[in-house]
C-alpha cells in the first residue's frame, strides 16, 4: 500500500475532510495490487476526473483509457466499487462508500495495464455474433426505403445507441462463468441486424448466435440491462433472439431463410 499526500501536489488548498481515499488497481496482465491515493474531493467531480487527477498530479505512469468525456465514445468504462460504470458520467458523490472509492479495470476482460482492459475479446465476439452488416443491395442499386414505423425498425432502433463501452459485458455473470459466451452487447447488435430489413441474410445472424457460445447460454439475470449506462435493454434483445431462433427451429422454411 502506498499513500500520497495531495496537499503537496494540488494547487488548491483542501482540508482533511475533503479528501477521498481512492484505491486504484496497478499492475500488468494478471498480476498487480490496489494502490491507495488521497485525492481532493470536489463539489462536482466524476470518477474519470479522479483518475485523471491522480495521473496528472501524482503518478504519470497510471494507464487508463478515455476519449470524449461526455458519454459518447464508450472508452472509459471501469469497475467502480465493484460495479461496472462509464466513469466520465459517474459522479463521485453517488458511488463513494464512506468517502472511499475502489477503481479497477473492467471485469471479464484481460487487463493490459492498470485500468486499461484489453477490448479485443469483446469486439471479436461482435464479429462472431454476425455483427458485421451484410447489405442486401449493392451501391449501384437505389437505397431501400425503410419506414420508421416498421415494427422491425422500431425494434432495431432500441439497440442502436450502444456505445460499445462493455459495461454490460463486465456486469454479466454468464460471461464470467462461460468465457466463450458472446455476451450481451454482441447479441444486442445481432438482434438489431436481425430486425434490419436491409440485411441480406437474417437467418445467418440467427445461425451465428445459435451455436454453443450463443444467446441460449443467457440465464436472464438482467445485469446487462440494469447496468447499461445508456439505458438500453440487451436482456430483451437476447430474449428476442431466443424467440426468433426457437421459431426458426420449429418452423424452418424457405421464408425464414430470406
Amino acid at each position, binding site marked *: 500500500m502506498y499513500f500520497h499526500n495531495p496537499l503537496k501536489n494540488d494547487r488548491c488548498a483542501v482540508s482533511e475532510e475533503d479528501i477521498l481515499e481512492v484505491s486504484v488497481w496497478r499492475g500488468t496482465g494478471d498480476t498487480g495490487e490496489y494502490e491507495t491515493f488521497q485525492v481532493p474531493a470536489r463539489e462536482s467531480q466524476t470518477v474519470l476526473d479522479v483518475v485523471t487527477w491522480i495521473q496528472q498530479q501524482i503518478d504519470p505512469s497510471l494507464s487508463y483509457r478515455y476519449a470524449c468525456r461526455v458519454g459518447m465514445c464508450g472508452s472509459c468504462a471501469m469497475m467502480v466499487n465493484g460495479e461496472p460504470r462509464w466513469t466520465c458520467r459517474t459522479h463521485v458523490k453517488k458511488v463513494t462508500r464512506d468517502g472511499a472509492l475502489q477503481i479497477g479495470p473492467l471485469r471479464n476482460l484481460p487487463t493490459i495495464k492498470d485500468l486499461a482492459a484489453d477490448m479485443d475479446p469483446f469486439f471479436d465476439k461482435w464479429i462472431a455474433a454476425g455483427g458485421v452488416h451484410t447489405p442486401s443491395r449493392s451501391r449501384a442499386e437505389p437505397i431501400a426505403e425503410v419506414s420508421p414505423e416498421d415494427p422491425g425498425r422500431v425494434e432495431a432502433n432500441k439497440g442502436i445507441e450502444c456505445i460499445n463501452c462493455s459495461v454490460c459485458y463486465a456486469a454479466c455473470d454468464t460471461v464470467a462463468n462461460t468465457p466463450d459466451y458472446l455476451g450481451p452487447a454482441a447479441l444486442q447488435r445481432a438482434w438489431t441486424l436481425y430486425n434490419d430489413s436491409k440485411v441480406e441474410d437474417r437467418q445467418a445472424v440467427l445461425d451465428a448466435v445459435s451455436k454453443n457460445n*450463443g444467446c*441460449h447460454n443467457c440465464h436472464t439475470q438482467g445485469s446487462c440491462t440494469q447496468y447499461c449506462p445508456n439505458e438500453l435493454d440487451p436482456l430483451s434483445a437476447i430474449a428476442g433472439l431466443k424467440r426468433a431462433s426457437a421459431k426458426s427451429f420449429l418452423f424452418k422454411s424457405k421464408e425464414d431463410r430470406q
Partner: protein
Amino acid sequence: MNLGLYMAQRLSAMVMVPLVFGHLGVMIYAIQGGLTTAEILERTMGSLWWFLFYGCFVVAVSIHSAIGMRVIVHEVLKLRGLALELVMWAFGISILFLGARAVMAVTML
C-alpha cells in the same frame, strides 16, 4: 448451450408441466382417503395409462435435467468438449435407467 439443446430442454419442460400437476394431484388424492401401498399398486399394476403417464415423465425429466446439469458442470467445474458431453449423457442415461426401473416396478405385472 446450442439451439438443439435449448429446444430439447424447453420442449421437455413443456411436457413436464402438465405431468407435474398430474403427479401432485395424484399424491393429494392418494393421501386424502389414506390409500395404502397395496391399494395404490392395485391401481397402477398393469395400467397402460399410468405406464405412459410416468414413462413420459421420466423421459422428459431425464432430458431436461441432463441438459441443466451440463450447464452447471460447464459453468462451475469449467468442463468442456467431449468430457462435458459424456457427463451429460451419463447423467441422463442414469436418470432414465433409475426412473424407468421405478415405473416398470409399479406398472408392470
